[in-house]
């Protein structure tokens, strides 16, 4: 089990913030009403999402939470833990906020 030195604490408030950003981002990008998005929404099949959107979203979170993590680290994690739904994306984003560059050590 990985210890968590100096890592961000994920509170309900953080989870709510992340969820709101993700929902609003995809609603705007994919031109759908935010009420049509849920944690079960499939990013590619339902929203026609793509990797550029994923990249843009990560940049938003890197700036907002001042994250010290390289994109390729997230890419390596995502290869082992593929994300299909909005809910999975939110969970992964919370792990990135919590563990930053140490996220690969979770495996």
């Amino acid at each position, binding site marked *: 089990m990985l210890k968590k030195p100096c890592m961000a604490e994920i509170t309900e408030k953080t989870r709510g913030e992340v969820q709101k950003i993700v929902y609003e981002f995809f609603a705007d990008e994919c031109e759908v009403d935010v009420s049509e998005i849920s944690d079960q929404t499939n990013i590619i099949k339902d929203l026609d999402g793509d990797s550029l959107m994923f990249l843009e979203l990560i940049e938003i979170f890197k700036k907002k939470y001042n994250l010290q993590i*390289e*994109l390729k680290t997230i*890419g390596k994690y995502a290869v082992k833990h593929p994300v299909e739904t909005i809910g999975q994306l939110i969970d992964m984003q919370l792990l990135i906020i919590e563990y930053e560059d140490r996220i690969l050590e979770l495996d």
Partner: protein
Amino acid sequence: MLTSYTVFVFPAFVRDYSDDTSFLVEGFTALFREKLIQASNLVDRDLTFFHPENQTFLDHELRTQYIAFIYGCSISEILQERGVSPELLCGYSMGIYAGLVQGGAVSFENGLLLIRHAFQEISYTTMTGRFGMAGIIGLKESDILKILYGFPMVEISNQNSAYSFVLSGPQKELEEALTLARDEGAFHARMLNVTIPYHSHLLKSAALQFAKFVYSIDVHSLKLPMISVLNQEIIHSQEDIKTELVENLYKHFNWYATQQKMIEMGMHRIIECGPGKSLKKNSKFIDGNYQFLSLEEVLK
């Protein structure tokens, strides 16, 4: 220094028409059909069979270039009829031909013939092997260059944003490089649906043959400045244009740097003269006070 603020950008070739809203704009369809028939009579009779959902048609590399060219010219003309004029032109890759037509440097007919001749020369040069292009998203340039060290025939042919690159080269080597890119943490590493390694040294001999045609046709100075995607300099004279046309086939370009330069020049309104939004999507990674718009968005 330019003080005005609108640039028309012409995409290269488009296979996805799902974002297209041009047909909603009054007058577009009639003008597009008129130009399509004109082009059909000159270069390819089958062009009139174009339909945005005809995948066989869209998989034909030369035809998709013709269609993007006709789209670009039609959109630009409609915009100017409605009083929207650019202060700058920019051709993304093979979008240069439509840009030159709109800038008055070459005729619509010669634009089509340039596309045909370039494609013919490239086809002769690449007929002995299997080539292509690939996209990588999520790695830095330095990471990609390390990967390419083992593949000397593959090169970065374009940078779309800080973490989005296009590669050109032999197909087998590209596929191997993509595997390494995925291992290195790329979010996206896939072959593009083209069989030609545009903007790579592999096309240098084709470009030299193409130059014979470029220097045989009427090319006039541009009425509007055009920014080069190769070096971000302003193109204006006949000689600049001819050089750009030839080098555009085999030299790398940098779309990221070109967008940054246009914004620095005060281009606050970037209009994508094509049926898709692919260039607009890439623009999101550039900060600045500007809007990236489609035909319909401009005329709303």
